[in-house]
C-alpha cells in the first residue's frame, strides 16, 4: 500500500474521531452529543482496522456503537425533557479551563512524542497492518492458553455486573412506564 494512501486514510479517521469529540463539548444539546459520538466511535473502529486489529475494530462497532451508544441514547431520552440543553459555560470558567486543557494536551503530546520507540511505532504498525492476516485466531489462542485466567475472571466480573443490573431491574423497582 502506498504511503500517501495510508496517511490519507489515517488522517481521515483521525479527523472522524477528533472533530465529533470536539463537537460534543462545543454543542449544547445532549442528544446531539450522543449522535456525534457515533462519529468518534466509528473513527476509532477505523483506526483499529487500519492497524490490522480487525477483531478489535468490529468489537468496537458491536459493543460501543451497537450497545453503549444505544444505551446512552436511551438514557438521555429517559432522563430529561428534550431538547436537553446544557447551560453555557461562563467565560470566567471557560478561560482557565481552556488553558488547563491546552497545557495538559501539550504535556501529553510531548511525553508521547519523546517516548522511546514512538518514532518507529508508526512504521512498525504500518508494516504489520499491511501484511499480516487478521489477528482473531492469534487472539483466541492467547485467550485460551496464556490468558485463560483473565478470560475466566472476565466472566466473574460480568457476573457481578449482571447481578447488579438484575437487582436494579428487578420487578417492581421501576416506575410505571
Amino acid at each position, binding site marked *: *500500500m502506498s504511503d500517501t*494512501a*495510508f496517511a490519507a*486514510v489515517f488522517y481521515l479517521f483521525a479527523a472522524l474521531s477528533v472533530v465529533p469529540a470536539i463537537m460534543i463539548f462545543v454543542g449544547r444539546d445532549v442528544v446531539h452529543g450522543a449522535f456525534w459520538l457515533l462519529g468518534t466511535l466509528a473513527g476509532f473502529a*477505523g483506526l483499529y*482496522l*487500519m492497524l*490490522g486489529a*480487525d*477483531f478489535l475494530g468490529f*468489537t468496537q462497532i*458491536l*459493543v460501543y456503537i*451497537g*450497545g*453503549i451508544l*444505544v*444505551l446512552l441514547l*436511551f*438514557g438521555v*431520552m*429517559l*432522563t*430529561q*425533557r428534550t*431538547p436537553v440543553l446544557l447551560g453555557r459555560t461562563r467565560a470566567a470558567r471557560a478561560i482557565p479551563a481552556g488553558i488547563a486543557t491546552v497545557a495538559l494536551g501539550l504535556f501529553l503530546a510531548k511525553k508521547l512524542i519523546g517516548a522511546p520507540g514512538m518514532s518507529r511505532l508508526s512504521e512498525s504498525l504500518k508494516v504489520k*497492518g*499491511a*501484511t*499480516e*492476516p*487478521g489477528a*482473531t*485466531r492469534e*487472539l*483466541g*489462542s492467547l*485467550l*485460551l492458553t496464556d490468558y*485463560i485466567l483473565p*478470560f*475466566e475472571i*472476565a*466472566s*466473574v466480573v*460480568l*457476573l457481578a*455486573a*449482571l*447481578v447488579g*443490573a*438484575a*437487582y*436494579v*431491574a*428487578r*420487578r*417492581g423497582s*421501576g416506575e410505571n*412506564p
Partner: protein
Amino acid sequence: MRGDNPPPVFETYFGLLVLLTLSAGLAAALLAVSAVLGPRRHESATLDPYECGVPSAGDLRRRTSVRYYVTAVLFILFDLEVAFLWAWAVVFHESPLENLAAMGVFIGVLGVGYAYAWAKGAFEWD
C-alpha cells in the same frame, strides 16, 4: 477456496472504506435528486406532526420508559459475553476438549447470573 495470493489486510479494509463511502454517497445522491425534482406545495398544516389530523397536544418528545434502558444494560452485558466467545469459536478446533471446558466454565458462571436475573424478574416487561 481462497485467492492465490490474498490481498493484504489494509487493502481489504481500504476497499471496505471505499464501499462504505460510496454507499453513503449513493443514498445522499438519491436524496439530493429527489430534493431537486420534488414539488413544493406548502400549506398551513403541511409541516405539522402527523397525528391523523388531530392537532397534537403535549410534549412531542416525551420521556421514555426506564424499561428500555434496563433492557439495554442487560443486552450489553450479554453482548460482551458473546464478544469473548467470537474469539473462542475460531480456535476451538486447536485443542477441542480443553477449549470446550474453558467455555463451559465461562458460560456456567454467566448462567448463574442469568438464573439470578430471571429469578429477580429482570426479564419481565410490564
